[in-house]
């Protein structure tokens, strides 16, 4: 009886002591470069609105995650270079982008990371309006533009958006999926107020995406020799036709060991490419229940977060949407079908326009909370009585562990009380204290780095290195069993909005001081198990065998 009481009393106790505390330490940490992206007070073209993403990744292998932040330009001025903030430790970062050869400018958009040449050093793909750039990590602190050498397109103009490295055929080499937003020709695009889709709430705003030509997504197969081949058509990626694709993430949604791909689409049905295990994909977003909202209505899909938020062993999806809409929460029912449970889960409709999004266990209680970056797309709304603001707060939903979330933004510390023009969002335990930080890319402003000071439970960080599988271990599934409960996660490339979360997986353990077992299902098919593992450390695991 006493034991029963303890079981029921624990969640109540956890609920009462939850108190998130985030402080913005960007400036103090040296993250001071300003983002440049289109007009600050008005936007003439949709190109000026999408903004940038960021990557949290350890580019120099020193065991500390570094930060890459893409940067953009304005219509009539040259662009600003991206930043590569090297993690110096003790909460300090130093921008080494110039020294690292990342000085290219232009309409940069998103970023994803993956070691495409399996040399043990994570590379970067930065998407552009123009042509995307593949930065190969040379291992000496420098990156080289390997786009042409890798036989990725270097001519033509496409509006690259989200991207993801994914070993879709499990041959040990990372392939590349790139979403495209709009087939945009600025010379043919009307100006604000000049067309049917160039007004919002009766004010003239930039046109689109509705009314503008849709774009096709692309899948590039890694040939294993440092080059890629465009297999979009043969793999079935072009079959659904054009979309306004933004966020991308690849993950194994049906637990069959093969990575699927989900694309959040703006005002067109979102896409779920189911991996048919033969080098082709079947698009089944609508049947699966992740193309629309619960009413079957189109949404302005932006960013994606993937996690097993309810602990049932299947990866669920959160998707950010337009102002006034709910953040979508697609519960994975059985691997094949999802149900939009946004309302039931307590995600409220607010006048916020969501972009970056991540499931992150901020208090290490073992339940992944949800953080959503917001900022309106139209700066023109500022000062008008429309019920919308251009600068919007970042929202934190606490996972209550019963399938429901509670909005705890107001009590999540000073960093959550500041409205921002946010776009990209990436998470990672940057200071290795077991509590993940949140990085936000703010349009035409300096970034925010939300230091997590939330009192919490015990944790495990797990960093994987593939051998037979791709070196980044992208696609590896980790199952941590602790206290009789299994927690799953997967190494993913590209996620949130235009961004890359740390490859180091983070597991909150609550009051438990050790995991009973860690199981890794490597993309190669190898299954590896580790026994009892003490909490509060970063466990580095290399795939057995060659």
């Amino acid at each position, binding site marked *: 009886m006493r034991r029963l009481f303890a079981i029921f009393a624990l969640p109540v106790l956890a609920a009462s002591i939850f108190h998130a505390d985030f402080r913005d330490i960007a400036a103090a940490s040296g993250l001071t470069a300003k983002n440049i992206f289109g007009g600050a007070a008005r936007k003439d073209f949709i190109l000026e609105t999408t903004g940038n993403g960021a990557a949290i990744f350890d580019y120099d292998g020193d065991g500390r995650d570094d930060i890459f932040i893409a940067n953009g330009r304005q219509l009539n001025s040259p662009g600003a270079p991206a930043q590569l903030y090297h993690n110096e430790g003790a909460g300090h970062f130093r921008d080494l982008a110039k020294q690292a050869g990342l000085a290219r400018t232009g309409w940069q958009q998103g970023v994803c990371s993956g070691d495409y040449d399996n040399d043990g050093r994570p590379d970067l793909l930065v998407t552009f309006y123009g042509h995307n750039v593949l930065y190969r990590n040379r291992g000496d602190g420098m990156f080289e533009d390997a786009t042409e050498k890798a036989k990725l397109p270097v001519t033509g103009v496409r509006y690259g958006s989200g991207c993801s490295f994914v070993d879709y055929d499990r041959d040990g080499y990372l392939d590349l999926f790139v979403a495209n937003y709009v087939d945009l020709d600025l010379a043919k695009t009307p100006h604000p107020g000049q067309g*049917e*889709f160039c*007004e919002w*709430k*009766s004010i003239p705003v930039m046109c689109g995406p*509705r009314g503008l030509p849709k774009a096709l997504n692309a899948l590039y197969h890694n040939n294993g020799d440092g080059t890629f081949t465009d297999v979009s058509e043969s793999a079935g990626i072009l079959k659904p036709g054009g979309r306004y694709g933004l966020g991308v993430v690849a993950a194994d949604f049906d637990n069959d060991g093969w990575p699927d791909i989900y694309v959040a689409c703006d*005002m067109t*049905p979102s896409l779920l490419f189911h991996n048919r295990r033969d080098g082709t994909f079947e698009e089944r977003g*609508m*049947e699966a*229940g992740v193309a*629309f909202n*619960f*009413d*079957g*209505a*189109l949404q302005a899909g932006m960013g994606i977060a993937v996690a097993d938020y309810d602990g049932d062993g299947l990866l669920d999806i959160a998707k950010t949407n337009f102002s*006034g809409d709910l953040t979508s929460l697609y519960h994975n029912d059985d691997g094949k*079908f999802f*149900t939009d449970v946004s*309302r*039931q889960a*307590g995600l*409220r*409709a*607010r*006048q916020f326009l969501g972009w970056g999004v991540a499931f992150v266990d901020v208090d290490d209680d073992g339940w992944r909370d949800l953080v959503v970056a917001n900022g309106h797309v139209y700066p023109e709304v500022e000062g008008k009585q*429309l*019920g919308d603001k251009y600068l919007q707060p970042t929202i934190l939903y606490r996972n209550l562990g019963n399938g*429901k979330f509670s909005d705890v933004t107001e009590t999540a510390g000073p960093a959550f009380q500041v409205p921002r023009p946010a776009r990209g969002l990436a998470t990672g335990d940057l200071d290795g204290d077991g509590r993940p930080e949140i990085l936000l890319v703010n349009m035409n402003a300096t970034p925010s780095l939300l230091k997590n000071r939330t009192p919490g439970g015990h944790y495990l960080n797990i960093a994987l290195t593939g051998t037979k599988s791709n070196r980044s271990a992208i696609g590896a599934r980790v199952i941590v069993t602790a206290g009789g409960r299994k927690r799953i996660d997967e190494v993913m490339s590209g996620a949130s909005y235009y961004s890359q979360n740390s490859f180091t997986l983070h597991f909150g353990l609550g009051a438990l001081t050790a995991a009973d077992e860690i199981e890794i299902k490597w993309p190669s098919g190898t299954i590896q198990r580790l026994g009892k593992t003490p909490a509060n450390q970063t466990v580095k695991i290399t795939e057995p065998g060659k």
Partner: protein
Amino acid sequence: MRAISCFLAASLLWAASAREEGIAAFEAGRYSVALAKLKEAAKDSHDARAHLFLALTQAAMGDCRTALPNLPATDRLAGLAAAKCYAAIGDEGKAFTTLEELRKRFPNDADVLYLRARLHMKAFNDATLAMFQGAPASYRVHELSAEVLEVQNRYSEAAAEYRKAIELNPAAPDLHYRLGRAILLESHNPEALERAAAEFRAELKLSPEDAACEFQLGQIAQVAGKQAEAKPHFERAVALSPGFVQALIALAKLEPAEKAIPLLKKAVELQPANEGAHYALLTAYRNAGDMQKAAAEKAILDKLQKPAGSEFSEFLKKLGEKPAKQ
């Protein structure tokens, strides 16, 4: 005899020439020239074309009473001119009757549709002015002001006008409903949800069988995450108005698949082009494991998929009329 024939032929030629010159002048907007030439041509009582264009010219010059007998509604141009003429002489009934005839013959003609919209707008303006002048103290003045403000997205001002209307006539139906909707259109924050719910409840006191209010209360409960509270409202909405498609869909989503499917089949039967109904039915079939029927629903949805409605249709939706009882 030959001389007479030659004279007649010359007269006909001359008349035909006058008709064509008259028509050309009419099309160039030179109505005084057109009038003279067409009067000349119309001396030939058999020249229907000359008579028609003469009437069109007279109508264009404002001589509607002379023109009207020669403006048949079977002809597009003549019908349009006739409708304008009837409106100009204040016979709105005949103007609308003529336009209705035209609409049947030319259902997608932009000029016909434009004139129809314009005359309805004029009728709206005339009626509004008459009400503002004749009954300025009536609650209807505030009700109408509120509805106009609502269409203009000025929800808080609309709500204020609805409140004034309620103050003047607390027992008038629909006012609380419209006020609740205006509140919801402005915000979905918890406080707004509660205020809107209070208005729908107030409306139900006045009109206990108002299905739309029950539906709104169900929706509010859902937005607030109270699924259990939502269900009885949707059930009552469906009981009160069995053809209320949105309520059928909302209720179906709270039911297990076997109960949801008949509700949704009815919804798609009532509104075969309702994408939301088909999507919900697809999901219900899917949840019931009937993948063949789910695929059939997907095929229908694929066909229905089209670019999202224009801003104008959104604008019209905001008028938010209650569904007709079926």
